[in-house]
C-alpha cells in the first residue's frame, strides 16, 4: 500500500494532490499572464490615486465625527459668507406671475399651487385649468427615455424638506413655523 515517497498519503490521495497542484499552477499562471499584459499595456487602474482618495475620505469622516470640531455641517447659521442673515421663512415679497398678488417668497409655492389649480387639494375642488393641456407625460416616462436603466417608479424618490436649518426634519408637506 505504501509507495517510496509515501508520507501518510495513499497513492490515490497523492495523485489527487498532484492534479490539484497542476491545476493550481495553471490558474496562477493565468492570473500572472493577465496581470503582466495589463501592466505592460498600461491598462491598469491608477490604484494609488484611488487609495489616496479613499484615505482622504476615511480621514474626513473621522474628523466630521469628532464632536470637538465646529460641526459646520449641522450647526445653526449665524451669518452667511456675505455677512447676511436670513429668516427661517424667506420674506422677500414679489408679485405672483399668475394672479398678480403680492406674495411672500417662503409661501409662494403653496400659493401658486392653489393659484394654478394644481395639487391634490386644488384638483379636488376646482375645474381643470387650461394648463392641463400641457400635461405631457406621466410620472416615470421621461426618466425611461433618458436613463433607461434607472428605476423610474415614483417610489424611488427622496423628498425634500422645508426651509431652515439642515438636519431638521419636517413632516410631509406642511410648512411649519419655527
Amino acid at each position, binding site marked *: 500500500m505504501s509507495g517510496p515517497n509515501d508520507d501518510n498519503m495513499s497513492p490515490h490521495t497523492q495523485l489527487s494532490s498532484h492534479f490539484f497542484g*497542476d491545476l493550481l499552477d*495553471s490558474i496562477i499562471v493565468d492570473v500572472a499572464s*493577465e*496581470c503582466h*499584459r495589463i*501592466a*505592460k*499595456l498600461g*491598462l491598469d*487602474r491608477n490604484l*494609488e*490615486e*484611488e487609495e489616496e*482618495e*479613499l484615505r482622504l475620505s*476615511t480621514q*474626513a*469622516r473621522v*474628523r466630521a465625527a469628532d464632536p470637538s470640531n465646529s460641526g*459646520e*455641517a449641522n450647526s445653526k447659521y449665524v451669518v*452667511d*459668507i*456675505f455677512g*447676511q442673515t*436670513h429668516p427661517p421663512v*424667506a420674506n422677500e415679497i*414679489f408679485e405672483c*406671475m399668475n*394672479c398678480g398678488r403680492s406674495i411672500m*417668497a*417662503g*409661501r*409662494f*409655492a*403653496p400659493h401658486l399651487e392653489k393659484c*394654478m389649480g*394644481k*395639487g*391634490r387639494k386644488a384638483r379636488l375642488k376646482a375645474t381643470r385649468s387650461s*394648463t*392641463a393641456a400641457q400635461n*405631457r407625460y406621466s*410620472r416615470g416616462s421621461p*426618466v425611461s427615455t*433618458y*436613463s*433607461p*436603466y434607472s*428605476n423610474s417608479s415614483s417610489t*424611488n*424618490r*427622496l*423628498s*425634500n*424638506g*422645508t426651509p431652515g436649518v*439642515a*438636519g431638521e*426634519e419636517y413632516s410631509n408637506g406642511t410648512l411649519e413655523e419655527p
Partner: protein
Amino acid sequence: MSSKINHHHHHHRFNTQIFPPPCPHLAEFRARNGSKPFRALQDCLRVKPPGGRAAIRRDPSEVPRCGACGESARPRLYACLACAAISCHAPPGPSHAAAHATSMPPGHEIAVDVDRAEIFCCACRDQVYDRDFDAAVVLSQTATLKSATIQSAKPENLRKRRRVDYRPWSPDIRDRVLMETGSSPLENGSDLPRGLRGLNNLGNTCFMNSVLQALLHTPPLRNYFLSDRHNRYYCKKKNGVSNSNAGGKRNVGTADGHGNKNARLCLACDMDAMFSAVFSGDRKPYSPAKFLYSWWQHASNLASYEQQDAHEFFISMLDGIHENVEKDRHKPHSQGHGDCCIAHRVFSGILRSDVMCMTCGFTSTTYDPCVDISLDLEPHQGGSSKSVSTKTHHSCNGEVDGMNPGQNCGISTLMGCLDRFTRPERLGADQKFFCQQCQVRQESLKQMSIRKLPLVSCFHIKRFEHSSIRKMSRKVDRYLQFPFSLDMTPYLSSSILRNRFGNRIFPFDGDEPDASNEMSSEFELFAVVTHTGKLDAGHYVTYLRLSNQWYKCDDAWVTQVNENIVRAAQGYMMFYVQKMLYYKASENRAVS
C-alpha cells in the same frame, strides 16, 4: 500590483494604452518574417467557448507535449514560431523553451503559449506583445461570435467632426468699443467667487434649489448662458410675444391677471434670467419663482406643493429645456449627439448595452442616450458582490488581483458602483433573452459600458430600498465614498470590450485615431447634492467647488466649508466635469 512603473516609461500612447516596444528578439523576428507567422497561426487558434479564450492547437484534439521531457501537464508550454517545436518552461526547474532557443540557430527565440495564446521570448524569458498577433487572436475570437447592432443610433456620426486646436481669442479695438458702449463692468467687491448666491426656499422647494445651484455652476452650462447663447429677450421677441415687462424685472410674464398666458413657456429663458441675476453681483438671496412657475407648467404632473425628489426634478428640467429648443431651427431631435439643445450638449452621453447568448455567443448591441447614470448601492456592506461570470475568464475590470480598495475596506465607493454597473451580469433562467441565432430564449450575459462620455457626468445614487417582505420603502443612509478626481477610462466601451477579449491590442468600439476619448476621460467633481433625513421628510443641500474652495448652499444660506465636510457627506447626486475640453470643427450652421 504597483502601477508606478508604467508611468515613467516613454512609450507611445495610443488611446491611453501603452504600446510597449518589442524586445530585440521579437524585433528581429518581425524584421525577418513580417506578420506572416502570426497569420499562419490563425488556423491553429481554437476559441472555446464562443468569444472566450483562444488556445493554439494544430488539430482540435491535439495534446501538446514538451519535446524535451514529454510532459503535457506543465502550466506553461510554448510552441516555437519558427519550427513548431513545443517546449515547457517551468521555473525554477530547467526551461526547455530557453534551451530550444539557445540550441537552435538564431530565429527560434519567439514562441507562443499554447494554452493562452500569448507570445513569449525564450531568450528574454518574458511575455512579449505584438499588435498583429493580437489582431489575429481577436479576429478569430470574433469570428466565433455573430453579432448584431440594433438601433439606428449607432454613433458613427460622432467621428465626422474632427478635433480642432483651441484658438485663443481676444477682443480687438472695435470689439472693446462695442462692449464698453453697451454695458458696464460688474463689480465684485469681495474675493468671493461670482455667481455665488443663495436661493430662497419657496415652500418645500429645496429639491429644486439644490439642483439649480449645481446647474448654475456647471461650467459649460454657465458659459453658455453667460455668453448670451440664449438671450431671453431675443427668444421672446422671436416667438412673437409682446412683453411690456422686458426690462429685466424678475417677474417677466403677462401684464394682465388671470392665467392668460401670452408669454411662451421657455425654461431656457427663465434659466437665462436666473444666470443673469445670480451672477449680477447682488448677494441677496434670489427667489426662483418664475422658474418654478414655468417648470410647473411644463411638468404639470409634478406641480404640487409637496416634498419632491431632486433627481426627478433634474431630469424634468433638462427635458423642459430640450422641449423648447427643439422646436427651433430644425435641430436633430436625437439626444445622443448633443446637437439638439444645450441640456443634452452638456449632459448627454451614450450607453452601450451588450447581451450575449451563452449558448452560441451571438451578441446583440444597443446604444442609448442618457443624461445621467443611476447607480445602485451594494446590497450589503463589505460583501464582494462580483458576479461570477462563466463567459469570460478574464476577470479584470479592475478587480483582477482583488485590489479594489473599496472592497478591501468594506466601504461603498462610487467606483465600486461603476464597477458593478459595467460588470457582466448573468440574465438567469427567469430572464432569458431571445437569441436571434438560436431562435429561442436563452440564458444570456448582459454588460453595460459607456460609449460616449458627456461633458458633465451626473451620478445619481439610488438611496432607496424596498422591502417586499415588509411592503415598505426606506432610505439607505449608507456612506458612499466619492473621489474628487475621477478617471472614467475603465468604464468606456473600448475598455470593457478590450477586457472582454483578453485586453488585446486592437481598436475596439470607441477607439478612434483622433481619440476624443484621449485625456477626456478625466473628470473633476464640482458639485454634490446631499440629502439628510427620511424618505418623505428630509432636506437637500448642495456643496459647490469654486476655485478649489468648497461652499455649502443651503437654500438662502451660503457658507464656506472645509473639503472634509464634503468628503464625509452623504452624496445623492454628484456632478463631475471633464478636466479638458476639446473643440471640434463646427459645421456651417451656428453651433448651439
